[in-house]
Structure formats: C-alpha cells, structure tokens
C-alpha cells in the first residue's frame, strides 16, 4: 500500500466504527463490548475474546439525550446517550463505563436504565493514585472485570490469553508512538489529523488488523515542511471539537505532547510482561499521567504537569476543557498560574454538547499562535 491508499482503512474505521464492529461480529461470532474510554483496559476485553470498541460521545449533537440527562452535562457523556438513543450503538453487546468522575457514575445508572438489555459494567477505578492500597484494590477490580467479561463471552479466563493480549497492545502502542514521533519529524506528511486518525481507529478496529495496517503505512515518505510550526502541549480528555487537530495543522501548531485519553497519554506507557498479567496492567494504570479526576498530593499535581510541559519542549499549552467538567475546571486556574510563572503562555478552549464554532476557535488559536511566534527565535 502506498500514499493515500494506506490511510484508507483507518479513515473508514473512524467514519463508520460500528460497521467495522458489525463486520467483525459477523465474521467471528464474537461479542462487541463498548467502553467509554478513560483507562478501561482494552486488553482484558480482548483476552475475553470480545472486540473492544471505544465510544466517543464528544462531537455528537442531538435532541434525544436531554430527555434522560440534563443539558449541564459534558459533551462526552451526553453524546454517548444520544448515540445510544438513536440506535448507533445497537451492535454493542455490552458497555463498560469507567468511574472517573460524578458524571460517569451517573451515566452508568442512566445508561443501565435506558439500555437494560446490554451487559453493562461499571469499572470502579481508584482515584487516590499515590496510596499503596490503590494497587491492591485495582487488582481486585480488574480481576472482577475479567471474570464478568468471560461470563459474557463464555470463554474461560486464562492468564496466557491475557498476557498475549497485553503483548499485542504493547506492540500497537509502540507503533502508535512511532507515528507520534513521525508527526514531530515530518509534520507535512504525518499531520496531527492523520496521526489522530490512527489513534482513534486503534480504539475501534480489531487491534491485530490495525497493527497490520500500520505496518503498511509509508513510513519512509519524506516531504519538505514549508510552515514554521509552533510546538504546543495539549491537556484535555478527548479531541473535541472534531476538526480541532486539522485546525492546528492548518495554522501551524505542532502538538508535541498531549494528555488526551485518545492521544499520546494512551500510548505513552507499555504494560510489559514482568509478572502476573493483572499486576502488569495495574502497574501500567498507576504510572499513567494522572487523569484530571484523579488525586495526588495537590502541589505534585501542578509541579508534575509543569515538568511534563517543560520536558516536551512545547512553547505553549492549550487546555481543551469540556464544558461542565468540574475536575478540569477546578484544575485549570492553578495549572495556568504555574505556566505563567514559568513564562509559558496558555489558552483555554471549551467544548460543549451543543457544539462550538470552529471559526471562533480559529480566531482565538491564531491569535495565540501569533503571540507565541513573536517570542520564538
């Protein structure tokens, strides 16, 4: 495969993820398990013989969800309900909703009430990352999830299966990290939008297929980049609004690192193969960049963030905050203050379930880029 053709399966998956899941289901007779992203261990779903499929609510607009959840809810949760109500997710046999905030806690119950015929699971993730008991608790919770999924699929739980799934996902993460590196080195070919398509499709396609498609990408293709790009760091949850990365590409911003669940954060850390496979997943989870709803010693949360930004070489930071997200909203001012003290400019952009104007965002982001570019040597 060469050129644009090589990107086709990724784009097809992103454009019609449930069609990809349907084809897999017809071919294998397996179960399709949706998950609401943050820190759901896809390896456990895969090892149970099911297809993990990420459900991204952000960017979905509609009118049906508001009958079930109030409008002052983030776009990610609201969009998931909307997709369910309009039957976009009918192919799912089950859904895993991780407890990362109050909204996901409520969403689980509302989802269960709206879609009682699916096998729904609530993954209780610990929030106190630096407390020793969190690891023991998470191990029990991941084990419970593994048992529950094996009940759904009917496959006996097997540590060797899980170890194999972890190895597959580690290989996939390595390939995606490679693509992310290419984005920095060859941004004219490996645009942010293209690389994000790889990341997004990885969470929706059978991972074996995805890895194979990635191997066929034009890794050696070179192209001169005429644009002077400004390196930025992005903090947020999911890439929302849709089209934001294309906008960054077009106006000359280069994302050198991000904390998105659908971005670099999700692939930065491998699980490895050292020990019991559940232990391995627990260690990986606890070493991830803290999700915004998690807790560490409060000064460490800020200093850790600042160190990550400074280590990335970014010249500016963009916060992509979902409107009504309490965790992101209360973190941001102190994070911005720390950046300001370190002489790093930042910009907060808000996404909403009612949609936002990309043109308005463009004006703000362009101004932000110009401000940073003036200071660049």
């Amino acid at each position, binding site marked *: 495969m060469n050129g644009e053709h090589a990107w086709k399966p990724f784009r097809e998956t992103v454009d019609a993820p449930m069609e990809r899941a349907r084809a897999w289901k017809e071919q294998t007779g397996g179960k399709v398990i949706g998950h609401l992203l943050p820190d759901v261990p896809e390896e456990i779903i895969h090892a149970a013989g099911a297809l993990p499929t990420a459900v991204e609510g952000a960017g979905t607009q509609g009118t049906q969800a508001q009958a079930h959840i109030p409008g002052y809810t983030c776009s990610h949760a609201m969009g998931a309900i909307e997709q369910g109500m309009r039957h976009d997710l009918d192919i799912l046999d089950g859904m895993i909703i991780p407890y990362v905030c109050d909204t996901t806690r409520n969403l689980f119950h509302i989802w269960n009430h709206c879609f009682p015929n699916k096998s729904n699971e609530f993954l*209780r993730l610990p929030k106190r990352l630096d407390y020793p008991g969190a690891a023991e608790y998470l191990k029990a919770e991941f084990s419970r999830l593994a048992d529950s999924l094996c009940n759904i699929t009917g496959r006996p739980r097997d540590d060797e299966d899980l170890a194999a799934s972890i190895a597959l996902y580690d290989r996939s993460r390595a390939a995606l990290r490679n693509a992310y590196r290419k984005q920095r080195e060859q941004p004219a070919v490996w645009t942010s939008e293209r690389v994000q398509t790889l990341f997004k499709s990885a969470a929706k396609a059978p991972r074996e297929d995805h890895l194979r498609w990635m191997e066929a990408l034009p890794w050696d293709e070179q192209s001169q980049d005429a644009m002077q790009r400004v390196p930025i760091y992005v903090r947020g949850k999911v890439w929302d609004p849709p089209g934001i990365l294309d906008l960054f590409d077009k106006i000359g911003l280069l994302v050198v690192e991000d904390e998105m669940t659908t971005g670099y954060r999700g692939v930065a850390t491998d699980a490895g193969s050292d020990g019991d496979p559940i232990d391995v997943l627990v260690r990986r989870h606890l070493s991830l960049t803290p999700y915004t709803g998690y807790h560490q010693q409060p000064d460490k949360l800020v200093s850790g963030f600042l160190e990550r930004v400074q280590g990335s070489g970014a010249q500016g930071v963009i916060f992509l905050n979902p409107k009504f997200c309490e965790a992101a909203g209360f973190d941001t001012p102190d994070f911005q203050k720390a950046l300001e003290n370190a002489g790093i400019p930042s910009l907060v952009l808000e996404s909403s379930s009612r949609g936002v104007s990309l043109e308005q965002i463009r004006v703000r982001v362009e101004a932000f880029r110009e401000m940073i570019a003036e200071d660049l040597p």
Partner: protein
Amino acid sequence: MQPIQALKHLKTITAQYFSSAHMAKRNNKAIVYLNVFTPVELFYALDMVPVYPENHAAIIGARKMSQEVSPAAENLGYSMDLCSYPRCDIGSFVMRLSPTWGLPKPDLLVGSNGQCGTITKWFEVLSRMYEVPMVLIDVPHSGNGERDPAAERYVRSQLEDLVGVAEGISGNSLDQDKFKETIRISQEASRLWTRMLELGTADPAPMTVFDQFVAMFPIVSQRGTQEAVDFYSELVNELEERVANKVGALDNERYRLFWDNLPIWPELRPLSSFLGERGAGLVASIYTWAWSRLGVGEDDPFADWTEQYLYTFNFHMSKRIDMYVELAKRYNLHGFLYHSNRSCKYISQDIPEVRAAVTERTGIPGVILEADHNDPRLYTVASLERQIDSFLDLLAQKR
C-alpha cells in the same frame, strides 16, 4: 405559621462555633477542614476543630452574598459552570468578605469523594492555597450497591491510616475512652436528627423541610458534641408536643411535598412563604435524610464508617427510586419537587430517570425545577414560582 422556638438557639450556636474555631490556634488546637462523609468523631476526640467549607458556602448563599463573592473566584478562572459552593468559598477568601469572619486557616484537609468528586478538586485548590496537607478518602462506589470486599479493605485502610496523620497534626494521641464517648454523643445526635425527620410523617407535619435545612448546622458541624445533642433534644421535644396537639408547620396543609436535592439557599425564605401561602408543605427531603444514619458503633467504628461510605450513602439511581417510593408511602406524599441543581451534578443528572420511574411506580407526579443551590444568577425566582403554581394546579385537579 407558628415559629419553632428551639430554632432560635441556632444563631447563638453558630456564632459560638465560628468564634471558637477562630480562637482555636490561640487555644493550641489544630483545625481540620472536612466534608460530610468523613469521621468527624475522630477529630473531636483528638481535640481538633472541624470546619466545613461547605457550611461556610451555604451560609454565604443563605445570606445572599453569593453574587458579591463568587465573581472573585470567576476572575481567577473558575467558570460559572462549576459548583457554586467552592466558587463562593474561594471568592470569599479572596475578597476577605464573609458572614462568619472568614474561616480560620486549616492545618489539615480531609475530604471524601463518596459525596462527590468536586470535593476532591475543591480541597486540592485549598491545599495549594493554604499550603497544608490533604488526605482524600477515596470511596469507589459499587454500581448498584453490591458488596465489594476489596473496596471495603481499601476504604477501611485509608480510615485507619488517617488516625496517625491526625495524631501527627494535632500533637495528641487518640484516647480510646474519649473516642468512645465522642461516638456515643454523635450517635445520640444522629438518633435525635432521625427522630426529627420521622416526626414529619405526622398529619399535619410539625416542621417543614425549610426549617430542617435551617436546623442542619449542628448535625453537620457539631456531631460528637454535647451542643448538638442539647439542641436536637429540645427541638424534638417541641416537635413531639406539636404532633400531640396536632399543630402543623402550616396553618392549612393541603399538599404534602418532597424536596429532592440540596436547597436553593438564597431563596429559602421566599420559597417557604410562597409554598406556605398555598398550603403546600415540604415534609421530607433526600438532603436532610442523608444525615440520618451517620451514627457509628463504639465496637468497630472503622467498619461502620466503611459500611456507611460505601453502601449507606451510595445514593445510586435504583436506590433513590426505591427510597422515594417508600417515603411517598410513609409521608403520604402528594408530589415531588425535583431541584435540578446545576451545581450538584452528582445528585441531579439522573433526575429525569428518577422522576419518570417514581411517577410510574407511585402515580405521584413530580416537577423538575432547574436552579442552583447557591448562585442566583443561574435561575429566576419568578420562573420557579410559575412552575410550582402550575404543578399545584395539577395536584388540585387530581383531587
């Protein structure tokens, strides 16, 4: 309407509480900031002074100061979409404007996310602001209340570890006799509070939920003190006398209603009068019921706290629906007022489903009132009153 005499003591109780909190440092007592589902008895037993930023924020709201102080927090970057309690609390700190002479600087922050995730982030902000340590009691709610032994071990170990942290900050060792005595006093306060709520089943109800909201201060802040027990003893005695003499909170109680969610603190008095004039009495509320089972046993309080935080206070949707159906029967309810509270997403986001299910199971209608517990800029009273009026018309037609 005859005012409840015992409530008159609250002004003095509140003033004395804040006065002694401000004097704590001079008396060599350490100050700990807490939220609801934390083991306050432990801190009283260690001679620490518990302070509740939520109480402070609610008082700001009730005194109609939110609009003055909240913009100061918004100017720091805290959006109006975020909970108005921390906005008011942080804004009050910035402006040095508070009905309680501010809050004394804490030595320790202890928050539990069993109540909501906002507490975690709010306390993190305060921890950085005051440069003091914070302990989070992380409560991983089970989905539908099923038993979770791993979560029980996790929560219990955090509570046990908290003792050493609090001893270190306070400079005191936990005296088991004093600890048990504090627990006994706390149990009694909790028992009296529950008794007060149960008296609302009387016809007519001797007290409205508005007065329950007002009476909450000691059960929140002073559980484990004799002051709380004395106050609720007198209040319960007065209410029992009212029930015996069939004296209602309203002169003419036509409708018995349930209030879901937190109060709208800035509108307590206007809404109370509005409903009272129409013979509509709020006789029960999830918010005041939430404080009814806070007592723990002396034998193994850590096990009891763990049980409470993980299961009793896990107000998941199915449990709320069952609870409302049961309360509808016990309190002989005619309708439900659901406060869809923009600030408290935790207890508000499932209201559309709760309302539909409760009405389906009981036949009792409910109306959703979109407002906010502390920020009057996010609702209009006239609109709430119109909705309530229409709802009362509906109830009248049903009769």
